């Protein structure tokens, strides 16, 4: 396979993720979109690592990213839950007390 194909897949996932963050109102879906971007990064990293002859840097990095993403999602869901308990809603647009 060609490197380009992996990069393209990564870029498409990335774009979908960015679109999700910008367009979605549901906090959980936004979290998922961010995860999508992180996964697109992983695809890129692995593709580059393979291109560089199985360079361990890329593989390790991808593992780190997975770990960090897990931590991030944990904190994110906790925050969403906190908000949900108070407001009975996870629509992000209702979170606009502060502005200006």
């Amino acid at each position, binding site marked *: 396979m060609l490197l380009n194909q992996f990069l393209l897949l990564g870029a498409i996932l990335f774009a979908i993720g*960015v679109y999700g*963050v*910008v*367009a*979605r*109102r549901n906090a959980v879906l*936004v979290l998922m979109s961010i995860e999508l971007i992180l996964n697109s990064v992983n695809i890129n990293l692995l593709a580059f690592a393979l291109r560089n002859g199985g360079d361990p840097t890329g593989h390790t990095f991808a593992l780190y990213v997975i770990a960090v993403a897990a931590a991030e999602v944990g904190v994110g869901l906790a925050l969403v839950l906190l908000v949900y308990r108070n407001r009975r809603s996870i629509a*992000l*647009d209702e*979170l*606009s*007390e*502060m*502005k*200006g």
Partner: protein
Amino acid sequence: MLNVIWLIPLLPLCGFVINVVLGRRLGDPKSGLLAAAMCGAAFIVTLVTYFDLVSRPEEARQHVATIFSWIPVGGLSVDAAFLADPLSITMALFITGIGTLIHLYAVGYMHGDPKFSKFFVYLNLFAFSMLMLVLGENMLVTFLGWEGVGTCSYLLISFWHTRESAATAGKKAFVTNRVGDWGFMIAMFLAFQAVGSLSYSALNSAAMGGTLVRSTATAITMMLFLGACGKSAQLPLYIWLPDAMEGPTPVSALIHAATMVTAGVYLMVRVNPVIATAFTWAPAVIAIVGAATALFAATVAVAQTDIKKVLAYSTVSQLGFMFLAVGSGAYVAAIFHMVTHAFFKALLFLGSGSVIHGMHHEQDMRRMGALRKLMPITAGTFIIGWLAIAGVPPFAGFWSKDEILLAAWAHPTNPALFKVLWGVGLFTALLTAFYMTRQVIMVFFGKARWEDHSGDHGAHGDFKPHESPAIMLLPLVALSGLSIVGGVLNLPFTDSTKRLLHWLEPLVHFGEIEGHASAGEKWGLAVGTAALCLASMGVAIFVYQRNRAQAVEPQILADGWRYDRFVSWFMGHPGRQAFEATAWVDRNIVDGAVNGVATGVRRSGAVLRRTQSGFVRNYALLIGGGVVLMLAWFLLRAVGVFG
């Protein structure tokens, strides 16, 4: 004694600290007397320093007292240091001298004010900052004082304001001053870039040694001039000064007449070698702005009815004269006029304060009149101030104004332009004589119009203006003495009577431009100007004193009438309209522009605020937009669009 010049600013600072801590306990009038004593002590130290300086040979009249190395690193080395030389000590003398008198006066004027001690806190802080400004050995120390006086002025203008308007009261002062500060900052950095130091001596010697590039010198000059315009109320940044009359009158006298507003002139004189190095259009711009301000403010002054507003515009106008002198290369004349102006304008302001005090805070001149009998000392001293500012010989103002006009008349390099400026200056001098006469007559002569309005002062019952207490009159008498004899500082008759010239010579010899005028020209100009000023005063007397003159001498009046009718027609129709128009321009356009800057910032802030909608999605979109722009830039560069 020169080693202790740091005492001069330190003493008011001590007064400030003591009053901050103990002010309320000391109360009225002790905290005020303490502040005055501190200022007086600073005056004595200055005086001693002065005599020490005089006793030295001319070339040794310069001393730098370094307190500590402030920023001693590598290429950037700035000391906290004070400079004692003829110029700084001259400034310090009249700042502390007049400052002491005004402090004393304020003890009487502010008596009974609930914020009495706070007032003196500010006043001492102001004196300290002003002394830092003039005694600073480098631009940074001056800048510190520069910011300090601006802040004090801002605080004092809002002193009597209620909570609602306090936030907006000093706004104009603040905005215009900040524009000026910006100019100063840029000049500072330019100077630093050019000579690698911020000290005046380094900058000036670079200019005198020819190592300062001409274009840089021009840029420094113009930026400093911008700063000076802000602080010294020149077109178009003057508008804060009339507004500053909202503050208590001693403040108007101290800050807005005698000291702070002269900071810009001082700064220009301080860097005169730089101005001399700049392209010749730079000083010409200064002279033009000065003359235009002088004329403009004088015309506005004619249409004012507030006793302090007249003096405020008159201050703007007189400062214009000083800048005309600076632009003409007559630095000694500028300082000379600054000193005499400090005498008589402080006198006039304090006199007006005395009137306001006696009239129970009435400031409208249309409700005054015939006060000379009720307030004889105030009236007498005010009249002396009037004669001094109007340019009647031998009072102080005549000599200094005459020298400025002479410098413009005899300017060697650009005679056509400066002849025009001379004309403008002369006309302004006539207007000055006119509106000051108008003021004196409206306040002290004519009919007692306050009687019609005694009912307005319901609380006072039988309203009667009264003379002020002795502590307020004493400074008036002292200042009127100075206004009479102030001219002896620099009499033009023989070389030996030009004391100020010799005193300042070593500092200004590089920048001072020698005019070419024969003795006959000089005499002619002096006599002609004085005569015209007297005539202008006569006209004003006829116009505003009409009723009285009619009663006494009908024959003269018959002749006078025709002229008077013309003048009053002129004053009533086209003339009045012209003056009203300039007042309108002042109110709406120039004011509007400065307010516009403030509201512009505010408006654009309000528009930009809308991007901050509170919605996370919008924020993400904004970030996304930023990413797109960033990527566009990098990719376009990568494919070579931007080289």
